[in-house]
């Protein structure tokens, strides 16, 4: 079972992962996933509540923000070239 980067989130992450994979294989891949993965939404919320704290503590939220800005810059460069 793949771990969460925050050990305290492992349990809720596993529950979400299992829900997602079931939804993905049984609904989305069969063309029935148009609305959203509502049956996993509650689990996802719990999981994110736990994970957000860990992302902040480790400074990953800032790294993600920087990466997004960097992508925007790169996209702008590539657009100009075309």
């Amino acid at each position: 079972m793949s771990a969460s980067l925050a050990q305290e989130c492992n349990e809720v992450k596993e529950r979400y992962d299992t829900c997602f994979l079931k939804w993905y294989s049984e609904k989305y891949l069969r063309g029935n996933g148009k609305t959203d993965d509502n049956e996993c939404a509650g689990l996802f919320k719990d999981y994110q509540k736990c994970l957000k704290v860990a992302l902040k503590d480790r400074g990953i939220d800032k790294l993600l923000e920087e990466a997004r800005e960097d992508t925007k810059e790169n996209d702008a460069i590539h657009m100009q070239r075309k």
Partner: protein
Amino acid sequence: MVLTHTTNHSYAHPFPTVTLAFFLRYYSPQLNPFSSHVLSTDTISSHVDPATGRLHTTRIHLKKSRMPSAVIKLLPTSVTGGAGDKSTYVVETSTVDIREGWMKTESRNLNFTGVLSVTEQQHYSVTPPDQSPDTKPSLSPATSSNTYVSTTFSYRSSLGNRKVDKAVATSDDPNRSRFGGWISGWGAKRIQSSIESIASNKTDDQMVKSRDGMGMVLERLRSNGVVAVLRELRRREGNVFEQSG
């Protein structure tokens, strides 16, 4: 400068199964023995666009450093933190369009970007890459028996660039501030292209392992559905847990 490298591959599995294997590829070393370098995997967003029906997912993987040792050796310890065994955070974004039969993914490192940024882009499709979508055979994504993937790696070293130096100058670590001077004395461009080419050469080996790993996950999914695969993993990992406890 940016160094890029593209390769094509095909899996003898239908497109939906390949996308499932993509999401499962780091799930367990029991499922994919080539995933033992992946320390953690977390989903930070996942939603279906109601207009297009596409699934957008963002995940963060923590991997044992993929920074090649040859690159580590080029750098002073003030930059590498004294070791090459640090972990790398990788952000992976993916979009799946099950109706049109394609998946696009992009993975890039979040830390060490001052030394080297590696971006891996993959395009999975029911259509071979040399065929334009207009001429595609009238096969639905679910019945087409092959899935084609085109993988492009981009390497960009920004070592010694102004933006990075600025970041270094604001760093709390006093050792790191000396680094800006070190690099300009050496000729940043030459070191940048060395790092890019060493990293590029190293990737070929990793790509084969990554492909083999996907292949093993696919074989498991061929003989069992995902729910059975997960149940089997849980049972086995449960046993391991009981033995160690």
